[in-house]
């Protein structure tokens, strides 16, 4: 027993040490709070499971099984409207591409207005940043609903939703990249007599370009996924095709479309990797 091997400490010393270092003896109040937190977490989880009637999962297993088998039991494939499906996918890709490229162009300018080193006038910088917060703070799906109301059903609403929300996030990421550049290279350009715009072009842009390209490529990939979701609220593309077939209980076709979208995303991911290697991985030593 460890405790027996310790030299005896009388109560008085113990008490004075306790008073001197109250934190060292494990305060009872802290232990109480910790217990309370654990108990309430467990209680909240159990209550939520009960509230959402988790036992329905067991009785639904039959239905779930039928759904899954319907998804993989492809019937009547000759009559599927392939033209419609693939034009939907093409539309989604175009939406994602256009939205991302427009957002990239916008962020290329706004990023510099939101970065501390390129926009020294702080009221303007803060105004730009707060506006970006608004664009970012509202979810893309909500922008989708707004633009469907504004410009009607169809891909244009999707493009605008992607453009607006990507502009918010990309500008923020770009401005952070701009703030992290090497000042010395900028000074080298300034010393040649280049004005502010030329300094941005030659001192800043070469440094931040790899980051910009990489982030925009990632956003193209991510926008392709979200463009699918945007279709569900009526903003055009393959999402509309999925929701139509879902409502008509054509689960096999839903599976087919989703698999096609997945392939597209893999291809985009692979292409982005190649482009990144081309533009960013070229520093040899």
């Amino acid at each position, binding site marked *: 027993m460890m405790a027996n091997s310790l030299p005896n400490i009388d109560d008085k010393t113990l008490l004075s040490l306790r008073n001197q270092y109250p934190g060292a003896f494990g305060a009872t109040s802290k232990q109480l709070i910790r217990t309370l937190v654990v108990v309430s977490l467990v209680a909240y989880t159990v209550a939520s499971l009960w509230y959402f009637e988790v036992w329905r999962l067991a009785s639904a297993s039959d239905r779930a099984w039928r759904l899954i088998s319907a998804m993989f039991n492809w019937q009547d494939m000759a009559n599927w409207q392939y033209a419609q499906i693939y034009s939907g996918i093409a539309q989604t890709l175009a939406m994602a591409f256009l939205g991302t490229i427009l957002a990239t162009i916008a962020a290329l300018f706004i990023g510099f207005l939101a970065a501390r080193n390129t926009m020294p006038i702080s009221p303007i910088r803060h105004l730009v940043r707060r506006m970006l917060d608004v664009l970012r703070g509202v979810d893309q799906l909500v922008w989708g609903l707004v633009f469907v109301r504004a410009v009607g059903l169809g891909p244009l609403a999707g493009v605008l939703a992607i453009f607006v929300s990507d502009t918010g996030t990309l500008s923020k990421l770009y401005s952070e990249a701009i703030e992290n550049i*090497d000042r010395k290279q900028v*000074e080298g350009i*300034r010393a040649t007599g280049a004005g502010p*715009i030329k300094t941005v072009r030659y001192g800043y842009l070469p440094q931040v370009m790899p980051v910009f390209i990489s982030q925009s490529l990632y956003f193209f990939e991510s926008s392709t996924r979200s463009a699918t979701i945007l279709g569900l609220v009526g903003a055009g593309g393959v999402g509309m095709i999925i929701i139509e077939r879902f409502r008509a209980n054509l689960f096999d076709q839903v599976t087919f479309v989703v698999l096609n979208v997945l392939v597209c995303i893999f291809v985009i991911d692979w292409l982005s990797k190649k482009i990144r290697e081309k533009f960013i991985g070229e520093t040899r030593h």
Partner: protein
Amino acid sequence: MLKIEHLTKSFATRNAVSDISLSIPQGQMVGIIGRSGAGKSTLLRMLNRLADPTSGSIYFENRDIAKLSGKALYEWRASCAMVFQQFNLVGRLDVLTNVLTGRLYHHGIMSSMLQMFSASERAFAIKALDRLGMAHTALQQADTLSGGQMQRVAIARALVQQPKILLADEPIASLDPLNAKIVMDALRTINREDGITVLANLHTLDTARTYCDRIIGLQDGVLVFDGPPEKLTLEMAREIYGAEAEEAFSEGMTSTALAGVPAKERLTERDLQRHSDMSMS
């Protein structure tokens, strides 16, 4: 003639440069010496207005440089080139484009944005690189070069600005002895052949003595010596360098003093080429 009058730069608690007056005739090679923090860099950076003076004037061809702004300031920077201790090249651009940025002042916004440099500008840039023995790296990305090579590219960038004055802020402090010598020889050649005034901050006394027509000593922002190298006595130098005297005088730091090369010999371009070949191998 560059004329500096009562030039002062104050920071919150102290003067980095206080009340310096100088006049430097066109074509002189001037070494500015002093310990770290003596105000050498601040003085140079005020001359091309990367730093703004608190008070005083800088006259060049009857214009007060300290009062320039906008286009006139950019024009002044274009005619008053600078090379830096850390070379300050844009790492991700190729060497040729780095050199061509020396022409940016002469370009409109559109041609700058689209990197449209004329064939004659490119030829001029390649010739400038060739003078420094760096033409063979023209299409290489700048951050693949070694320190000595980068500094030579930076000098080529300064040359295509066709400057009247070349400021060199500790141009050899980050280089090994051989490269330091190549760079100092290049500055000397440019000074002699092109008649460009060179103002170089030099940390080591020996380099200043070897290459410069005139030495300026700064101590805590105050001008304490101004004269030809011969006039700079050992006591004076000790006074200027203070606690850093040993370091500034020591053999290891007198980086340009290579054995067997006569010091003030006028170097030809062939010499430069030879030195660059030495550094390649």
